[in-house]
């Protein structure tokens, strides 16, 4: 492939470089110029981590062939600030606490800059529309909005420049909103995440992933791939020197498929080559002969006799069953005035951290193998790696690189074993960066749950018995599933004093993408059903849903569903605080069926409904003198 010459001005400096013609502007800036401030989050124009100015106009640089930007003036996030002085917007992001993991922030700062350049007086709606192409997974956007409004007001003189400075703290530092110490490195793009790291003589890894949900690997031939020019080595399960079976609670997972694949996306072999393009080409030369096995994709079907079995040690595919038995639920139901039943379903979701998985592995001078990656649990990953690599644990080293969002998704180990093996085998640094699509198919998801709910209550709202039967699809490997079942069972019935409780949380192996740790870890699913169910019960009792919760709330010294005694219980404090802040008007759910309207709606602590077109009012012509039509429509509640 012949190179082309690219001439660009980047952040005020002229560059001329010969490079492969197919590079995107993002690749050119990051890999050729080593300006790694802007990130690659999705490669498909969907997330905005790569937003850069091209001739003054903001573009998603993953959608721009570098040749299309020939002769253009590029400004990356590194080019915003001059001589170590952050811009007003960057300082406002720092002040407002607008960065968390920081991975989206370079792109977000660029989008905010573009928005205020287009209209220095942009109101909140126009700011939101200006940021509409940039995803943030950590902040909920609130502090980003606050930052952009702060910057706008400082730029316009509505607020003094001192509004950007840190407040002075009197009294304790504990309890003070000290500005985040890592924010300057995030708003400026200076912080290097794993995919931004390079080392001399570094190799690149790519992984062959299973296209089959369940199959025996009858033959695996990597010889042609291994002898390709530029390929350093190809790894398979045969390269694992130690115990090739790991997990968080249950050891059921190999570093790469060992004789069988159990989900689409499971790693089979890893190619280590001079560049990612060669590694990808080599993947296509690996020959795998699959013998398809019967597969099961539904958790309840997987529990049936005769269903395909995933792991010999777990007949019936049940990998965990957590039970809680308190009191006598049948008696509780018998004594109830009202029994309410419903089935709830929650779906699998993706963590969608903006930073796809990445890592860099190398050997220290003393032979210690080091893996630098955005791991949420380097302690446990080191334990597992020492066993996998059959090495003394003090010759295995893990360094956490800045984590561009985790939410539990970087807790279950996935690729670190391959990276460590690659570094040991090649004795060179090896980097591996997932694509977004690879992250989707290979990494663990939130467990989808099906919950059969039965609750017995007295007419006064007192819950006498709760029974929850929860089946979770754990996918092909256990990962954090057993822990998720525990939390679902322990917390599922909610913070309510219930004399009789029966909980079953069952995690089932299927040939779906594995489920693992995710923020709120089983409690999201189980407490969702309880809180939705209580609203249904309030409706049936003709009760205010807050009152129903007050009646049942655990109080100081309560006994939990696992029969532990609590000390102070703050639940009622939070109920009263939320009700007061929201000016909650008591009444049964959907009171307007009786013609009664809620009086508490639409306060100035709610946002306006989004109608889009905030800027249309500015550009209308004399023929159309009014703004967006839908904006003028009255909201009918």
């Amino acid at each position, binding site marked *: 492939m012949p190179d082309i010459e690219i001439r660009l001005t980047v952040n005020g400096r002229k560059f001329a470089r010969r490079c492969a013609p197919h590079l995107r502007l993002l690749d050119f800036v990051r890999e050729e110029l080593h300006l790694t401030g802007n990130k690659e989050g999705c490669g498909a124009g969907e997330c905005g981590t790569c937003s850069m100015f091209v001739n003054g106009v903001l573009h998603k640089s993953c959608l721009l062939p570098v040749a299309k930007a020939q002769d253009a003036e590029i400004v990356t996030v590194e080019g915003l600030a001059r001589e170590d002085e952050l811009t007003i917007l960057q300082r406002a992001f720092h002040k407002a606490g607008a960065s968390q993991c920081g991975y989206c922030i370079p792109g977000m700062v660029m989008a905010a800059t573009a928005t205020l350049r287009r209209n220095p007086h942009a109101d909140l709606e126009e700011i939101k529309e200006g940021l509409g192409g940039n995803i943030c997974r950590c902040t909920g956007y609130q502090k980003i909005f606050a930052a952009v409004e702060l910057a706008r007001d400082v730029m316009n003189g509505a607020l003094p420049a001192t509004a950007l400075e840190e407040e002075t703290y009197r009294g304790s530092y*504990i309890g003070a909103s000290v500005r985040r110490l890592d924010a300057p490195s995030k708003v400026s793009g200076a912080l290097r995440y794993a995919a931004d790291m390079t080392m001399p003589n570094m190799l690149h890894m790519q992984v062959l992933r299973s296209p089959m*949900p369940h199959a025996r690997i009858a033959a695996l031939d990597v010889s042609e791939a291994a002898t390709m020019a530029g390929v350093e080595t190809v790894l398979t399960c045969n390269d694992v020197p130690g115990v090739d079976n790991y997990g968080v609670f249950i050891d059921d997972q190999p570093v790469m498929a060992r004789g069988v694949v159990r989900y*689409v996306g499971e790693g089979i072999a890893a190619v280590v080559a001079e560049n990612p393009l060669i590694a990808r080409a080599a993947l296509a030369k690996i020959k795998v002969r699959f013998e398809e096995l019967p597969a099961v994709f539904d958790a309840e079907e997987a529990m049936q006799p005769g269903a395909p079995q995933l792991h010999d040690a777990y007949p019936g595919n049940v990998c965990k069953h957590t039970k809680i038995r308190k009191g006598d639920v049948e008696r509780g139901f018998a004594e109830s005035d009202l029994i309410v039943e419903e089935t709830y379903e929650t779906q699998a979701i993706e963590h969608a951290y903006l930073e796809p998985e990445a890592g860099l592995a190398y050997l220290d001078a003393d032979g210690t193998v080091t893996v630098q990656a955005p791991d949420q649990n380097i302690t446990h990953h080191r334990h597992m790696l020492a066993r996998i690599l059959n090495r003394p644990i003090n010759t295995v080293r893990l360094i956490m690189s800045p984590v561009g969002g985790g939410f539990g998704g970087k807790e279950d180990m996935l690729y670190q074993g391959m990276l460590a093996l690659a570094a040991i085998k090649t004795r060179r640094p090896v980097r591996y960066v997932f694509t977004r699509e690879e992250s989707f198919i290979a990494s663990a998801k939130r467990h989808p749950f099906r919950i059969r709910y039965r609750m017995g209550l007295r007419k006064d709202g007192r819950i006498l018995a709760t029974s929850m039967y929860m089946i979770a699809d754990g996918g092909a490997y256990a990962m954090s599933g057993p822990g998720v079942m525990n939390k679902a069972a322990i917390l599922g019935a909610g913070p309510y004093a219930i004399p009789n409780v029966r909980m079953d949380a069952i995690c089932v192996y299927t040939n779906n993408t594995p489920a693992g740790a995710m923020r709120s870890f089983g409690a999201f699913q189980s407490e969702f059903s309880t809180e939705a169910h209580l609203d249904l019960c309030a409706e049936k009792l003709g009760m205010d849903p807050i009152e129903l919760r007050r009646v049942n709330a655990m109080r100081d010294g309560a006994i939990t569903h696992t029969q532990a005694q609590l000390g102070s219980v703050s639940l009622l404090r939070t109920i009263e605080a939320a009700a007061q802040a929201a000016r909650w008007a008591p009444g049964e759910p959907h009171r307007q069926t009786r013609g009664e309207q809620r009086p508490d709606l639409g306060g100035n602590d709610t946002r306006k409904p989004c109608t889009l077109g905030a800027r249309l009012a500015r550009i209308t012509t004399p023929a159309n003198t009014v703004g967006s039509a839908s904006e003028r429509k009255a909201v009918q509640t």
Partner: protein
Amino acid sequence: MKRRGRGVACCWYGIARTAAVDRAGAWVELDDGGTVKVTTGVTEIGEGILTTLCQIAAEEMGVRPKDVTLGDNDTARAPEAAHAGATRQTYIIGNAVASACRDARDKFIKEMAQHWNVPGELIDTRAGEVWVRGRDLRMSMAEAVDVLKKQHGIVIVGSGSYTSLHTPLDPETGRGEPWQSYVFGTQIIEVEVDTDTGEVQVLGVWAAHDVGRAVNPQGVEGQIEGAVVMALGQALMEDFTLKDGRTTTPGFAKYILPTSLDVPQVNSIIIEDRDPKTPLGVKGIGEPAMVPTAPAIINAIYDAVGVRITRLPATPERVLEALRAKRANEADIAL
């Protein structure tokens, strides 16, 4: 037609690892220039734990947060602090750092007491200064470190750890003490449902959460806001779907995440019910804040339009389908 409604939901959550002992360790050095070096295997995943630990170390040592340097998380260089998860970092590691700082500070006070020949109880430190109450003895922490090192040959180092004891569950009854500390919370949510399209816009969230003690209120708000919006995504739009084990949502074009145009105004109310079981009284917030949002949204949809969504996510299609079923049902009753 746009209709509004409100819903409520509560949550509780256990802090740190479940039904298993949890622990972390930390080392501290009072360093040149009156700075403080803290080393612990903490993992910043964006929640702001590094800033939180710097505040804790600054408070305990009597320096300013910017004087604190945290070592990298490196299994070969730092003591174990285990994982970033289970809403445990401020609780477990924060208390470990406080404990290490108290160890170092005790040594520092003892040495300064000898240097000044005063009782240690009279010595205070704060914001980079050390002084003796009621006496004209005062110096910067930088000077103090210099004096201790050069005149007395003393390097001030401390270490500490924190342990949270939890018992496993009985396999048949589930009886046990899975955590020593719990948090509670309540969210009220206001939505607008478009009965022409089934779209749900979440307009307002009032989120009251007990965090024990808010080390950094802005950071706590950030956790609540982020959790609310992540849960909003699961409640209304996100869905990782598979067909015969192959995903039909392989990237962000098909897997829909909340954008700036989809998020409510989040009003956080921080409740501080200090935890008497720990040195700092802190608990946690990262995970619990995500728990009440989805049911509060679903309950608010019911309040607005009278349909119960029992299967997440409540996409426009599902909301409109439920409205259609409700109308058909009401028409049947009318006949």
